[in-house]
């Protein structure tokens, strides 16, 4: 039968493909191209300088520190975030606990996510400013003898970024984890209960394995988001990662290079390229380590079966 080729399908996918090529692929390729040049916004000409931008990044330690900051802040935020999300989800989906007004709790936990990070950051910045309410409260209650400059402390500034990130995102993560948990068939738990499994055993042997695809999704999206952390550290202090560059994330560093007087977009692009490579490698790593091992085990078998077949056919 001769298939009639109808081009309408291409028309339907065209908007996405065009948008993706123009706004997705082109900027990435352009950034990679720029990262090998010394382009600035203020000069008309630019030269190809090979790997100089990258060499510089690794030489002056600022980049290494920014990457370190990013990872530190991200992991300190992500571990409690996923922990809280799992705990709350188990509590909400647990039939024995049967928590009342689940919808309200869920809404309350999700609420911080609806607020703009900029607004939340400005709010926390004001609360903990030198003349802010936090100092007033702590001094008048006798916890402090005099007002503290909170944002002079590296640990406090980092902790604040971690907290704001955690506070705005654990609700969102919880919703996704709960969706994953409610899709696990109930009979599995019933059977486990009949067999006398404890809550912990059910969690580790049923919930976690079946939740893996969801966890991989959360892990990867949180990682990409975390590696691009910018607005909260940017707005919390001086926009440069003060105090002592302790909350200067990789993207903030990229922005500083871009926003310098001449607009060194070549140098900024090299930071972008390295963030891109780092995120991609880590995401692939997550996929690899959290892959479904059973299916993976099945693969070689399939291959050998296929091989056997071909061998047979050859013979």
């Amino acid at each position, binding site marked *: 039968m001769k298939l009639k080729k109808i081009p309408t399908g291409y028309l339907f996918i065209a908007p996405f493909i065009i948008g993706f090529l123009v706004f997705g692929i082109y900027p990435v390729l352009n950034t990679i191209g720029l990262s090998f040049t010394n382009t600035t916004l*203020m000069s*008309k000409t630019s030269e190809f300088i090979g790997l100089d931008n990258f060499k510089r990044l690794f030489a002056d330690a600022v980049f290494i520190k920014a990457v370190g900051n990013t990872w530190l802040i991200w992991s300190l935020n992500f571990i409690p975030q996923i922990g809280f999300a799992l705990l709350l989800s188990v509590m909400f989906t647990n039939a024995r606990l049967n928590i009342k007004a689940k919808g309200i709790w869920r809404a309350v936990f999700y609420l911080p996510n609806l607020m703009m990070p900029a607004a939340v950051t400005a709010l926390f910045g004001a609360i903990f400013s030198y*003349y802010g309410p936090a100092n007033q409260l702590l001094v008048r209650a006798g916890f402090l003898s005099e*007002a503290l400059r909170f944002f002079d402390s590296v640990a406090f500034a980092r902790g604040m970024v971690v907290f704001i990130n955690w506070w705005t995102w654990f609700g969102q993560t919880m919703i996704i984890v709960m969706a994953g948990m409610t899709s696990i068939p109930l009979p599995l738990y019933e059977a486990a209960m009949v067999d006398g499994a404890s809550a912990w055993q059910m969690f580790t042997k049923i919930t976690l394995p079946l939740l893996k695809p969801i966890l991989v999704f959360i892990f990867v999206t949180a990682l990409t988001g975390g590696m691009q952390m910018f607005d909260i550290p940017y707005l919390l202090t001086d926009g*440069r990662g*003060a105090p002592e*560059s302790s909350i200067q994330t990789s993207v903030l560093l990229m922005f500083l290079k871009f926003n*310098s007087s001449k607009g060194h977009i070549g140098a900024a692009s090299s930071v972008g390229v390295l963030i891109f490579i780092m995120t991609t490698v880590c995401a692939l790593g997550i996929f690899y380590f959290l892959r479904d091992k059973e299916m993976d085990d099945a693969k070689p078998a399939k291959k050998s079966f296929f091989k056997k077949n071909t061998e047979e056919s050859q013979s």
Partner: protein
Amino acid sequence: MKRSYIVLSVLVALSMLLAACGAPATEAPAATESPAVEAPAATEAPAATEAPAELEGTLKIWSFTNDTWVIATAFKELHPKVNIEFTMIPMNGGEFQTKVRAAAGTADAPDVVALEAAFVREWVEADGLLADQSDLLPLSQELKSYQAGVDVGTYEGVTKAYTFESTPGAFFYRRSIAKECLGTDDPTQVQAMVSDMTKFVEIAEKIKNCGTKDYYMVGTAGELSSPFFTTREQPWVVDGALVIDPKVVEYVHFAKMMRDNGYESGAGQWSEGWFAGMNDTLKDANGTPKKVFSYFLPTWGLPYVLINNAKAKDGSSDTSGDWAMVKGPMSYQWGGTWIGALEGSKQAALAKEFVKFSCLDEEFLTKLAQGYYTNAKLKEIDPTVPDSLVFNPGDFVSSQVVVEKIIPSFDGSSAAQFLGGQNPYGAFAEMAPNVSGRLIQGTDDAIQRALGDPLGAYLAGTMTEAEMWAAFLTAVGNENPDLVLPEPPVK
């Protein structure tokens, strides 16, 4: 930190504009205070219409401030056949600069751009971005444009941008505290007491130990960064190498001394506490009221920052009338807006005419300073302008000729009443000629911002001075890869 100051100052300015439009009643007296404006305008109008050929065409103007919109509307009054396409782009996070840089050289490029003090110099220094406007220099000399403004717009002998305002900085102080602690509130005598940094520190000590000992000399020592940097011997960059002038080292030591001795309130510039000091609502963590004796602010700081914040939001206190202004220990300048035309504009002649009109037109600058462009007037010229668009009287314009002519018209103005009868225009007029723009370079902003974080850590005591300089040099090098870095002053 400087960047966030600018963002905030824009926010403050915008909120001021919004506040101003919400209270038209308060503007009315200001407008009636300068009836002299209408008269010369009316008589000089025929002269303006005699202009040789009537201009026409479309002029694309991009700006980060509404001031340029007012100027554009005023330009339209004179040249009704000119079609003006005004685009407003916020300056926050470098958005304005990025958009203009990206558009430059393309068909979408604007003809005229407004440039802020923080980045104007980078544009003037860049090759082939702004058109040469040197032929307007004789006119600038005729109007005695303040040299600092011209210096900023000139690079290697070519003048590419002009400004309609001059932004000398002053030292604003509280008359009541001066009387109590220094025995006088007379500007001449107070100026003599703070005329150099040694005397300034002595007065700071006096203020600190005065009365109930709840007074601070300044909100934050950071306010003095502009004065210190303006009085350097050498610019930041000489022959492609960074220079840490002795004045910079002096500033760092000064800031540390101010912090350690408790001469500053400790509220960061543009923070709640810093503003609270302006209206006596500042309370320390124990609830004890604290007062701030002085603020370092430039021309625009008087209406947009000080007057705007002198009344507490809840109306509990009002310091209006209790202020005075003097030159202070150092002459300095802070901020400002420059106007330039892009190279390669198809409307080059028209753009030049606009630059000439906005910055070098005696009649226009007079009108602008005296509050001729009320919202009603602007609406009359162009009914589509928003209700918030207005140019309040009192902006300190760039021409010494105009300034000297109109000083008397500000006697008894609302700003003068705020300063206890002192004419701010007259006071700024004495300061403006002393300011130099010769040190200003394109990289200033990025370099000065890089000092903020290490300096903060040094003041907090979490970094030694040697560590601070090392961190500063690293940060400068990170954003200015082409700069040769010197040895730190302290190792």
